[in-house]
C-alpha cells in the first residue's frame, strides 16, 4: 500500500504507524463538557464498513501526523491531510 504524503509524496505504508479513528482530534473540554461526553470521546468508536477518517503517524519519515480518509472495505485511500491542518480547520489553536 502506498500513502501519498501531502509533503513528501508517495511513501510505502510500512513507514507509517496506525493509531485509529481521527475523532481523537476533537477532545472535549474535560472540565466543562461533562462526564458523558468525555466517556463517549474516550471509549466509543464507530466501526464503519466504508469511508473512515483515521490517524496515521509517519514514524519512519518526518514524524508528521496525518488524517487519512480510507475505505475500510476496499482499502482505497481518497484523501491524505496533515493532522495539524485538519485540527486547525476544526478551530483548534495548536
Amino acid at each position, binding site marked *: 500500500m502506498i500513502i501519498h504524503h501531502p509533503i513528501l509524496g508517495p511513501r510505502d505504508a510500512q*513507514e507509517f504507524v496506525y493509531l485509529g479513528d481521527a475523532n481523537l482530534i476533537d477532545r472535549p473540554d474535560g472540565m466543562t463538557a461533562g462526564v458523558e461526553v468525555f466517556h463517549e470521546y474516550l471509549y466509543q468508536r464507530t466501526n464503519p464498513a466504508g469511508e473512515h477518517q483515521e490517524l496515521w503517524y509517519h514514524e*519512519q*519519515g*518526518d*514524524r*508528521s501526523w496525518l488524517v487519512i480518509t480510507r475505505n475500510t472495505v476496499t482499502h482505497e485511500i481518497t484523501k491524505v491531510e496533515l493532522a*495539524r491542518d485538519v485540527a486547525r480547520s476544526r478551530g483548534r489553536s495548536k
Partner: protein
Amino acid sequence: MASLMAMTALGRREPTTVTHGPLTITERTDVALASVAARKGRMADLAQAAQAAGTPLPGPATHQRGTPYSAFWTAPEMWFVEAPFATHELIAEMLKAALGDAASITEQTDAWVAFDLAAPDLSPVLERLCNVDFRHVPDGHATRTMMEHLGVYLIKHGPKEARLYGPRSSAESLLHALETAAHSAL
C-alpha cells in the same frame, strides 16, 4: 580543571575510515550540527532572519549546501543545520544570535554519528539497508529512514556520494550494518 580527551562516536581518538572493496565509509567528526524549528506562527520571521544570516532553509526532503552553513529539511518548519566544527563548535549559540527568537534551536553535534559513504555506485548497498529509492531520487535528496531499526538521516550528494547521520549511541551497530550490506552487495 581536568583535561578531558575528546572521543569519537566509535570510542576512539581519531575518526575511523573503513574500506570495503569499492566502498569507503568515513566517520566525520568535523561537522557541527543543530536543529532549527520555527516557533508557532513565526515562519516568515525565521525565513527573513535566515536569509540575512546566510542560513539555507531548503524545501521538503532536500539538502542545500552553503558556506558556512548547509542545511537539510527534517520535518515541517524544521531543519538540521551543518557547519564546520573547527569554526562553529558553538553552532547553537551562533544560530541563536543570528536567528533571534523566531526559532527554537537545539545543539545536535554529539547526538549523532556522521558517516560519509563513497563508492562508484551506492545503490546496491543502500537498497539493502533502507527503502529509499537511492537510484532515482535527485541529488540533494535528504530524508529520514530506517536502517536496521535505527532512525537515520540519509543525504544523497550524488550517485557516488552520500552522508548518513545515525544515533551516536548506536554508531558501532550502524557501521556493522553498513559493512554487512557492503559485504553482500559489492
